[in-house]
């Protein structure tokens, strides 16, 4: 198991190199001249040329790539033409917000989805089953940004119990901490006032994001539980007097988790890449907003940086999912 983990970690390196190449190539092949855009409409050819040199865009592509990769390793991810700040710093500012949002959404989806899916399978065609089926249909069919708008309408305009948008009110000082994730930082600091504010801001965007994974996890869990319940070993366990509770929560649950795990892993990365709509609706200062801005101003470095970070998180998530398979299913245990 340890050997397998190590091997998988080493395999990450060539994957990352390939990834940087692809991302770099795509960004350079895009039409349009970012230098002209950055220098402004009234710039003389001389100014444009000096800006081009400043960004190193006058060199050949392999040279640019090499400079980029060596920089990456040293934490120099280039400079954003738009914000004029190092990309690495920008990403470190925006990443925690996105991670917080995605983690909260996945937490809601998992904590609600697994028990509801189990219940729907056990009480098939009962109240819970119909209820979750309806929620699932809505959750999959409704676009996230539209759901976000509906939530704002309901909880902000009508009920007026939650803030409209943003991550933290401008007049308050956000909690300081090592992670940059406000909820965790305020818990670490024991600052319950900040935690309440952070959670209030997090609630709507996280819920808007969670509905689609929640729907899928619920349905997946239901389907696999029903399948497992029909297996022969469930009959044996029943015939030998094991209680229904134990059969369901111990023997069936672990079997049913395997396929749900795949969905969870896929959704983490899918949400990471797709935060932009929700972040826009809720004005959430995350990677999605940052990336959109960069794309609109043809700003290479942030686009590459964000893509790289999301891809890296994707690779790590998939590795974790693969390792968890072994925990849930001994037949795929690796050596």
């Amino acid at each position, binding site marked *: 198991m340890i050997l397998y983990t190590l091997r998988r970690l080493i395999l990450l390196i060539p994957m990352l190199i390939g990834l940087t190449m692809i991302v770099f190539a795509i960004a350079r092949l895009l039409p349009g001249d970012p230098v002209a855009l950055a220098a402004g409409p009234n710039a003389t050819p001389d100014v444009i040329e000096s800006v081009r040199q400043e960004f190193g865009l006058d060199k050949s592509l392999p040279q640019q790539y090499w400079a980029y990769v060596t920089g990456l390793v040293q934490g120099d991810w280039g400079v954003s033409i738009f914000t004029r700040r190092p990309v690495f710093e920008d990403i470190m500012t925006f990443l925690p917000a996105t991670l917080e949002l995605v983690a909260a959404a996945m937490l809601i989806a998992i904590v609600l989805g697994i028990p509801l899916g189990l219940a729907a399978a056990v009480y098939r065609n009962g109240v819970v089953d119909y209820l979750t089926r309806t929620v699932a249909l809505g959750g999959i069919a409704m676009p996230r940004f539209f759901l976000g708008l509906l939530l704002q309408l309901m909880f902000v305009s009508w009920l007026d119990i939650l803030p409209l948008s943003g991550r933290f009110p401008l007049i308050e000082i956000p909690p300081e901490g090592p992670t940059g994730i406000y909820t965790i930082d305020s818990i670490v600091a024991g600052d319950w006032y900040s935690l309440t504010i952070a959670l209030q801001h997090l609630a709507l965007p996280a819920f808007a994001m969670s509905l689609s994974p929640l729907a899928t996890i619920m349905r997946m869990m239901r389907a696999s539980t029903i399948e497992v319940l029909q*297996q*022969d*070993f469930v*009959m*044996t*366990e*029943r*015939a*030998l*007097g*094991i*209680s229904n509770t*134990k059969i369901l929560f111990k*023997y069936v649950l*672990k*079997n049913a988790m395997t396929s749900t795990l795949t969905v969870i892993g896929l959704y983490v990365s899918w949400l990471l890449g797709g935060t932009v709509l929700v972040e826009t609706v809720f004005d959430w200062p995350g990677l999605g907003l940052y990336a959109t801005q960069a794309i609109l101003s043809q700003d290479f470095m942030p686009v590459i940086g964000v893509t790289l970070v999301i891809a890296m998180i994707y690779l790590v998530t998939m590795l974790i999912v693969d390792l968890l398979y072994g925990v*849930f*299913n*001994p*037949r795929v245990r690796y050596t």
Partner: protein
Amino acid sequence: MTLLDIKNLNLSMRSFEGETQILHGIDLKVERGEIWGMVGETGSGKSLTGLSVSRLIPPATGRYLAGSIEFEGRDVLKAGEKEMRALRGRKIGMIFQDPTTNLNPVFRIGTQLVDVALHAGHADPTVLGLEPGASSRDLKKAAKRVAVEMLDKVGIPKAAERIHDYPHQFSGGMRQRVLIAMAMIGKPDLLIADEPTTALDVSVQAQILKLIHDLVAERNIGVLMITHNLGVVAQICSHVAVMYRGRILERGLVTDVLKKPSHVYTQALLNSIPTAHTKRGELRGLGGVMPEVQ
């Protein structure tokens, strides 16, 4: 007291197309020390009779029209679910057909054995060699010890180590031994074995049958062996009941029934077994069809 006394059992099964009566007045008595073979074609109602004894047919699909199943004098058809659970795994052990699908693939066999032992121990601590009213910590310790002992008894080498293995690390025959250990760990008085050797190859079949036979002889318990293999009946059963379309056509001592079958159906069944002298292309089947339930 009679161990198992099935009287006039009538069962119907529901499906989308309606209700079909499957069992028509089954009568059967099983005493301690007797090994009853129930033979018949697929669909004749043997398995449903076996499942009925542990009342494992969901009420939504099966309905008992008449009759009773008395286990040690108590009618299980009238018992509550809690009472039934106390019988299952403790007083009544069950073994099913396919050892590859009847063990939970993602749990160690030790976990599965210990859970059954614990359940039986809760119902009656003496099963695990403890005084009545033993603490749950003692029960757990004893359950683990008994699990290893039982595994050793059914012939798994290095039982203390193998208990930590997963089902896929065992061969088919070994898995069936594990399932027998699970069925017998609660020291049941009645064992229901539903085609325990059908999925195994012939050489392993004989070993498994011998194992069941020895355990039964040692503990003097009653057995209901459901099979469609008359060879199995001839090898280990003391009595046999022949079923056809939900009825028992003929019953009695194995020696009598197999040597001098009185019912035409039994004669046809015996004749359909191919022997070394059967000519090519001369296989004899049985006519008629089973009632449909789908």
